[in-house]
């Protein structure tokens, strides 16, 4: 049980010109599941490693339960970490792997044995306690890595892309298992991933990072519905949010040829980036009121849904529409797309930062 607070922490590697982590601040509440999400090289793993004490902090402070952790070695922070590579000790059996951290802290051998067996049973590894890691499957190794964290009953759990090495089916079940685990343990967890599905499904909150900085923090659906920048809009969601050029008018917006009744604080005539999620675009007959018109260049039936690629052939980026299983659109035909004005998101054309908007009328 712990509160983890990061206050403007920075990381600069010796010889590096750019900061790997730049003024990152957030607080993870007691029992919260926080996901750090971002593309590779965005600083999310470095941030996690600084919380773990495996990486020094260039500036700023990290506190766990109000205690300043800067300079406290990893071994004294009472945290547990699950690595992408699992990092199981290859020369030890599953039993020894699970008990290795406990033995350090607990002198009572019987208690160590009891805890190890209890955790092994809870993650279905009882029959494998005598095996060494090389004799286990990928999924089993992953569970040992997980068990090694659970058995310690630490203040904070840290996960560094723990599911990336699993195959797709196992990833889905392990994801659910982790969520269940979080609920059962009510522990503070910080989880690093580049997989937005993991972020959306597991996190109480998501912290999206880009180039060492925080791009946005919020509950997954809030971040999805109201991205703070075009970076977040594009990074979250698959396919990503469609971005179009537009301009503010007296009555709202003009996007392509359509007048959209959205109130903005923008001066008439100023350029704006308009974002619409693929699932919010619907085909319309009314060409003059269409947000976007173009030729269908691709239809991708995914089973549950169908993605339709639409290209205006005027140099602007193509648009992707998420439709139901059966779509009326045919390849090469021209279609018109409209959208509920409430679902339109606006971003500054220069900076890409979100502009607050609300529907007229």
């Amino acid at each position: 049980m712990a509160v983890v607070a990061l206050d403007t922490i920075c990381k600069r590697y010796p010889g590096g010109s750019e900061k790997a982590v730049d003024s990152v601040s957030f607080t993870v509440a007691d029992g919260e599941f926080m996901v750090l999400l971002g593309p590779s090289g965005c600083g999310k793993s470095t941030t996690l490693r600084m919380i773990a004490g495996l990486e020094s902090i260039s500036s700023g402070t990290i506190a766990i339960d109000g205690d300043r952790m800067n300079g406290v070695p990893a071994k004294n922070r009472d945290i547990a970490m699950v690595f992408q590579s699992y990092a199981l000790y290859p020369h030890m059996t599953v039993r020894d792997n699970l008990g290795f951290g406990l033995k350090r802290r607990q002198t009572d051998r019987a208690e160590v044995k009891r805890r190890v067996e209890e955790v092994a049973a809870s993650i279905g590894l009882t029959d494998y306690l005598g095996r060494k890691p090389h004799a286990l499957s990928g999924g089993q190794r992953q569970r040992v890595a997980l068990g090694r964290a659970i058995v310690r009953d630490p203040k904070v759990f840290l996960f560094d892309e723990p599911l990336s090495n699993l195959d797709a089916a196992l990833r889905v079940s392990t994801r659910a298992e982790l969520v269940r685990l979080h609920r059962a343990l009510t522990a503070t967890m910080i989880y690093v991933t580049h997989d937005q599905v993991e972020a959306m499904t597991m996190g109480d909150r998501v912290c999206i990072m880009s180039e060492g900085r925080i791009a946005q923090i919020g509950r997954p659906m809030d971040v999805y519905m109201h991205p703070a920048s075009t970076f977040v809009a594009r990074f979250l969601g698959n396919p990503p949010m469609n971005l179009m050029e537009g301009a503010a008018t007296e009555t709202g917006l003009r996007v392509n040829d359509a007048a959209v009744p959205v109130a903005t604080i923008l001066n008439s005539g100023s350029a704006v980036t308009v974002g619409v999620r693929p699932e919010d675009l619907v085909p319309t007959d009314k060409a003059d009121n269409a947000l976007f018109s173009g030729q269908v260049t691709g239809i991708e039936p995914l089973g549950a849904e169908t993605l339709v690629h639409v290209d205006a052939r005027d140099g602007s980026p193509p648009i992707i529409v998420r439709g139901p299983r059966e779509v009326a659109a045919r390849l090469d035909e021209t279609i018109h797309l409209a959208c509920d004005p409430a679902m339109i998101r606006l971003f500054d054309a220069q900076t890409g930062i979100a502009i607050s908007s609300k529907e007229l009328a």
Partner: protein
Amino acid sequence: MATARPSSVFISPASLKMGALVVFIALYTAYSSGPFVWVAMMSLRTTTEIAADPYALPWPLHWEKFASAWTDSNYDAYFVNSVTVVLAAVAILTVIGGMAAHCFARYRFRFRGVLYFVIFSTIIFPPQVTVIGLFQILVEYGLYNSRVGLVLVYVSIQLPITIYILEAFFARIPNDLFDAARIDGYSEWSIFWRIALPVALPAISTTIILNTILLWNEFLYAVVLITEDDKRTLPLGVLRFMGDQLEDVGMIATGLMIAIVPVVLIYVFFSERLIQGMTAGAVK
């Protein structure tokens, strides 16, 4: 042979290849084991017998030559000296070499590259270059003609190659393993003993075997730095049978066998380990 019908008379190309290989290996084995067999035969014959016919079979078997070498020619002392010196040197080499290799592989510190270069570059000096200097140093520190001095010299000449072999292996151990141990609550010191060393065991045993064999056979430094008969190691034992006028070839062979047998035993029992360590792949 184009019209040859399948028949047991004809030998298939595969078995022909196999046969050629067997013949080659047999010849090579005979070639390489020849000297060893010859010394083994001579070790059981007297010098007079050898002088009469150097290549004759050993008959009758003079086993008493071994007893005589052991008791009358001080080979018991040589053997004990060799075992002590080699064991001590190898133990120190393994611990210090392991620690140094772990540091070079794991930590980034100032002058790491320079230090590594300085240590490793010493292997370019042939022993003939350093032996006089070492002699001077040992005399100055009162270590000349002492087993402790010899152990220290052995450690210093084998340390670079030991570090080199171990560093390459340690560097391949994934860093996550050490991070995991740190998070599990262990200090850098216990991580070295509980994680790095056990995981690197194949490489460690390679260096142990390699150093044992090399130092067991070492002659040059031993002959220069040890003069007292009671402190000599096995390779110097032959000096016992070499006079100005006469060489007791038969006893030299017996002495050699006493020195060779432990090495052969090490090869027989550990050769697989040795190859394993040399060719060991990534740690999984």
